[in-house]
């Protein structure tokens, strides 16, 4: 995996796992790679992965069965959706609106394009 330069690596690992949940690669109840396996695969410090996992656990996306490993939580998909939506609203939307404004694109014009694309 290539990390991008702007975001802390532990957050990029969280994003990676959330993406796998949203795309359905990992389903609720699935066992995920151990901290060590993930660190080896991504070539990062195991403590960084441990931090990502601990944060995902706090948010209820994964849970830990002592001595067995980490698993995707029962309502992980809806939790991840909520988080991703909040992040989209907070980070992507403002940037998007700024560009629209800069290029003089009206909300009506956008709405037309949106309807065309979705239908």
């Amino acid at each position, binding site marked *: 995996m290539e*990390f*991008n*330069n*702007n*975001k*802390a*690596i*532990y*957050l990029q690992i969280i994003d990676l796992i959330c993406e796998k949940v949203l795309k359905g690669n990992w389903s609720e109840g699935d066992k995920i790679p151990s901290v*060590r396996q993930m*660190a*080896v*695969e*991504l*070539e*990062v*410090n*195991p*403590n*960084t992965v441990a*931090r990502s996992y601990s944060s995902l656990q706090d948010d209820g996306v994964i849970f830990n069965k002592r001595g067995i490993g980490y698993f995707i939580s029962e309502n992980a998909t809806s939790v991840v959706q909520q988080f991703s939506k909040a992040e989209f609203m907070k980070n992507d939307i403002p940037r998007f609106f700024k560009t629209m404004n800069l290029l003089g694109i009206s909300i009506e014009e956008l709405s037309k394009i949106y309807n065309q694309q979705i239908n």
Partner: protein
Amino acid sequence: MIEINQLTFGYTKRNILYDALDLQLKEGNIYGLLGENGAGKSTLLMLIAGLKKPLSGSINVGGHEADHGSAEFLREVFFIPEEMTFPNITVSDYISVLSPFYPKFNHQHFIEMITEFGLSEDQKMNNMSYGQKKKVIISIGLASNTRLLLMDEPTNGLDIPSKSQFRKLVAKYMSDDRVFLISTHQVRDLESLIDPIVIVDNGKVVFNETLETISEKLLFTTAEKVEASDVIYVENGVAEDKVVAMNHSGEPSRINLELLFNAVLTEKTKMNQALPTQQIKY
């Protein structure tokens, strides 16, 4: 696990390299040791390995004074130097001579590692290239299972795929009861691996922080994204001006180690304000 107190060292008494240096290293961490050329990174590693004797002060590794060279100390320390000389024997002969000194040496892990590096036990060590010798010594160090593993510029001489293998192996063989201390100039090779970051300058440890604390207090971004008054350090570029700035939101950014290093060495006062827990000593 490693306690260095008031360490003073110089190659001659008039030319002091380290003056009253203090440093604590805790198990379960892969420390990155950064410093300019001649700052004494290699010397510090040799001092911790007990290969040099301090003029004054103490270096205690897991309850043992480094310069006493007791067997209990030596079996728990492995040093991967930058320059290596090997006798003209095969890898397997070398291992049979060396491994008895390291009671926790895992032969199976060693074979796995050198195989992954494309080497075999039957090869003569003298016929190997610098990079191949490096791969052997890295594999021995990781397989030795010593509590302390010191590496001096380990990625020097490694080809591109081997650098990736090196990172994988370090992540694999790091454990909660080991300390890895890696000195490097190649911060890009090891950026995602080393944490905490230790910086030596002018005979002192001037910085010793975890990535978590660094990213909580400092923002690594471009000039137009922050208030000018928050900027601590700038590097002007054609495309963008990279900055280290105060982080008021606590929102973490990706740490740029080269930028951090330059900021620590040039903006001591401002860095002290941004990281008040960190005494940047001069």
